[in-house]
């Protein structure tokens, strides 16, 4: 086996050990999950954004004239939502004091 087999793989990295092995995969051990999740969500939103035609919105004037544009549609919906009060207000959560036993 080669020398690098003595080093744990990235998914076995130990937070308590200093990351001085010069391996970028080891260095990213504590944040890989968040980074990959963010990447996935961003990619998903990006694809949806591109396929929606939203990038064409810059040339649109009155939102009502562009029902096919997702941004214009959103502006119209938002205008409707803000002009009409919700049917019922949701009540606030009453937070309780916490005692550790």
């Amino acid at each position, binding site marked *: 086996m080669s020398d690098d087999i003595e080093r*744990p793989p990235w998914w076995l*990295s130990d937070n308590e050990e200093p990351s001085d092995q010069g391996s970028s995969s080891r260095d990213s051990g504590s944040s890989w999950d968040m980074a990959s999740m963010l990447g996935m969500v961003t990619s998903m939103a990006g694809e949806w954004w591109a396929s929606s035609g939203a990038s064409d919105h810059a040339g649109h004037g009155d939102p009502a004239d562009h029902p096919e544009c997702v941004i214009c549609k959103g502006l119209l919906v938002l205008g409707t939502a803000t002009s009409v009060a919700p049917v019922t207000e949701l009540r606030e959560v009453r937070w309780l004091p916490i005692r550790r036993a």
Partner: protein
Amino acid sequence: MELTAFDNRTAIRDLASTLSNAGAATKAVDVHAAMSSVQRTAMFIAAFEFAAKIPEPIVLQIGTSVPELIADICSMAVALEVGAPGHEMTARLSSAATAVASGEIGWLVATPPEPAAMTTVTTQIAQATALGLVTRGVLVAPMPRKSDGWPRKIREGARERVRELADHLFGVTVLRARAGNGPDFSRDDDHLIDPSVTKNVEGDYLLSVTIPGLQSCDLEVGVWSMDPSYPSTHLVLRLDGVTARIALDPTLRRCVGVEAVVAGDTITVPFVPDPGQWPTGKNDDDGEGEVAV
């Protein structure tokens, strides 16, 4: 199947529109997060409705945080039930939320034997349990194998981490891959939150819930009412930013939550009867003040 296979523009538009009519869109601060949340929720509804049409259970792969997805579904369902009752999308969303709470949907979590990933899984199991999601188990894979040349120290370290994870998630089935093969998980392994109510000598009611992994979470406990007739209809738990609501039974709805006592993975909330919710007996024809609950 991948969750993204159910990306449906019409469902996203309908859900966003209904939420807007219910007043929810006006509260959105992070537009990107709100858009992603609505998109994920719409995909989940589409997947749920697809699964309902076929007799065999389907396995859905979800690459993002499952508790956050479930929390979004449950929160949006509550928002629509209050703000847009009777709407078609409200019914569709409520059906999916009910299926989650009734144990029809099970969650199998996979994680490598890496400390940061296992900490994330511990937190997510606690969040999912509070949300009422059935956890079938945790699969730890891939494990370092001797046949692949991994030294004994690394192999033993990985196995020790699996044991630690099982300790932190007491009550949840935690199994590791062996010889490159995944273990079988069955419905017998399912773990579901099981709140219990007892009455102490002072006449107060004690609601207790045990949540595996609770000790690794930042915790807030509160009460909330979706019906103005009662002081509270739900116990609210916020675990590392994910909010879960646990419905209170008819007795506790007529009581007032006092505090939260936390011991290990267990939360106990004393509820004191609200005098305004309980007849005193003074005006009762039969002179008795007992109420059947």
